[in-house]
C-alpha cells in the first residue's frame, strides 16, 4: 500500500539518476516525504530497482537520522540539543514540549499528529534555542513561545 503512494515519484528519481546507486538517498527522501516512513515494501522495491541486496538499502535507511522506519507524526518537531542551544536553555524547551504533547523524546502522539526528535545542531545557533517543525524554523524560543507554536499546530487539521 505504501509503495503506491510514491512509486511514480520514485521511478522519476531513479530515471533521473540512471538507476545508479546515487539515486538511493534521493529516493529515500522522496519516500519519507510522501509516505511518512519507510516500509519493507519500499525498501525491497528500491533494492530491486537498484540491484542491491535489501539489507544494503536497510542499512543506509537506518544510518541516517532523517529516515524513519516507523510512522512519524504529521508534524515532526526537531529540537536542537547541541551545546549552543543547550547554553540558551534548550533543556527547558524540550521539557515544555514533552509536557505539552504528553510524550517522550522519540515518540509520536497517539493521534499521529506530533513526533518529538532531539537532534544535533541545526545551524540555527544565532537564534538559540531553536527547533524546526517539519520545514519551518522557530528560534529564540521560550517556554511561552513554544506553547503558542504547539497550539497553532494543534488547531490545524
Amino acid at each position, binding site marked *: 500500500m505504501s509503495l503506491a503512494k510514491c512509486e511514480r515519484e520514485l521511478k522519476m528519481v531513479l530515471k533521473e539518476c540512471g538507476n545508479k546507486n546515487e539515486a538511493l538517498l534521493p529516493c529515500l527522501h522522496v519516500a519519507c516525504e510522501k509516505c511518512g516512513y519507510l516500509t519493507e515494501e519500499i525498501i525491497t522495491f528500491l533494492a530491486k530497482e537498484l540491484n542491491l541486496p535489501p539489507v544494503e538499502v536497510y542499512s543506509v535507511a537506518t544510518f541516517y537520522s*532523517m529516515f524513519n522506519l516507523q510512522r512519524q507524526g504529521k508534524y515532526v518537531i526537531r529540537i536542537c540539543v547541541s*551545546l549552543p542551544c543547550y*547554553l540558551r536553555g534548550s533543556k527547558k524547551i524540550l521539557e515544555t514540549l514533552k509536557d505539552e504533547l504528553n510524550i517522550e523524546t522519540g515518540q509520536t502522539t497517539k493521534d499521529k499528529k506530533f513526533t518529538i526528535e532531539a537532534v544535533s*545542531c541545526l545551524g540555527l545557533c544565532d537564534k*538559540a534555542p531553536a527547533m524546526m517543525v517539519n520545514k519551518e524554523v522557530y528560534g529564540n524560543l521560550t517556554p511561552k513561545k513554544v506553547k503558542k507554536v504547539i497550539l497553532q499546530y494543534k488547531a490545524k487539521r
Partner: protein
Amino acid sequence: MKVVLKNIEKRGYKGNIDSYLKEGGYNAFKKALKMKPDQILFEIKKSKLVGRGGAAFPTELKWEFAKKCKEYPKYVVCNADEGEPGTFKDRIILENDPHLVLEAMIICGFTVGAEEGFIYIRGEYFKAYEILKRAIEEAERNNFLGKNILGSNFSFKITLFRGAGSYVCGEETALLDSLEGKKGQSRVKPPFPTFVGFKNKPTVLNNVETFANIPEIILKGGDWFSQIGSPLSCGTKLYCLSGDVNRPGVYELPANITLKELIEKCGQGVRGKLKAILPGGVSSNLLTDKELNITLDYPSVQKAGSMLGSGAVIIINDSRCIVDLAKRCAEFFDYESCGKCAPCREGTKRTREIFANITQGQGNLSDILLLKELQEVMYDTSRCGLGQAALNAVRSIIEKFPGEFKEHISKKKCKLKICPM
C-alpha cells in the same frame, strides 16, 4: 573589509541573479574564461587561501592536484553539510548569496577540467535547498551553467544533493560515500579525494566559505587577497559567535582580530562572567579568560593548544557546570560516531558512560586517567577527524578545570547543582 559577505551586507540585496549581476556577479567567471587554468591556479596560490571547513589545507594545492590528474571525468564538490555545533556561516551564505558559490564552483570546474559538480547540502537546510535550486535554474537560463557556456567549449552542470542528518558526512570522504548512495562512513586516507574521490575519480572538495572567496580573488588578484589579515592567515574569516554572548551571529573579519575584540566588539560582551571559550566548536580544545588576547588565525589558535576549525566560537559563562558540558559533548560524539572504526565507536561510547557515572556521583578518580588515555588512543588511531577530535574538549576541560572534576568525583558534589547527584 568584506570578501564573502560583501553583497549580503548591502542593503536591498536579494541574492537572486539580477541583484548578483548588478553587483558585478559572474564577472570573475567571465575573466577566468579568458585566462589559462594555470594562471587561475597561480592567482589562488598567491592568495594563500586555505580551506575554511576546518582543516586549513591550501586550496590551490587541491585544485592543482586534481588538474594534473590524468583520470576523467573529474568532479567538483561543495561541502555544505554544515553540522559542527556552533557553526552556521554556510547557511547564511547559501540562503543569501547562492550565486557566489555557484560562480566559484564553475570557475573551479573550468580550472581543473571538470564538467560536473555537486553541492552536498545538509538535509535540515530546507530553505537553503530551495534557494539553491532556484539559483541553479537561474544560472542555467543565463547560460552560466549548461552546455558551451557563454559561447566557449566549456560545459558544466551542478546537481544538488541532500544529506539526511549525519554529522560525520561533513568529513570529506564520508561525504563522498554518502554522495554515492552509501552509508556516510569515512575512507582511509591516502588516497586523498583530489586523486581518488567521487566514484574513484579526481574530485575537488571545498567548503562553502572557501568557494565564496574565489570570485573576489579572480577579480582583484591573489596579491590583493594576501594583503588582508595577517601573513600567517590571509583573507577574512567568518566567525560564528554563539552561546553566552549578548549578540550571537556571523561576523566576517580579517583573520588578525583577537578573541577579546571579537567577543567585545562584535558580540557586545559576555552574558554573565566568562568561564571558557570553545574557539572551534565542540571538537576544539577549551580556552579560558587567560587566553583572550590570542589572535584568531589558524596558527595562533593552534599555538594556544586549540584549533579554529570552522570558526564556531562558543562562549560559556560561569553559571555552567563544566562537567555537565563535557558530558553533553561526549553524548554528541557517541550519537554521531559512524561506527566504522573501533577506536571511535567504542571510545565515544565509553566516554559517555564515564560521564554518566561522574555526573551521578559514581565517578572514580581513575576515570580522569582513563579519559586521558582514551583521548590519546582515539587521537592516534581513529580513522577520521571525528574520532580524532572527539575528546579534545573533554581533555582540555580536565586539564583546565581539574578542581571541578575532582569535586564531582571525590566529594560527589556539583557546586552549581546542575548534575543530578
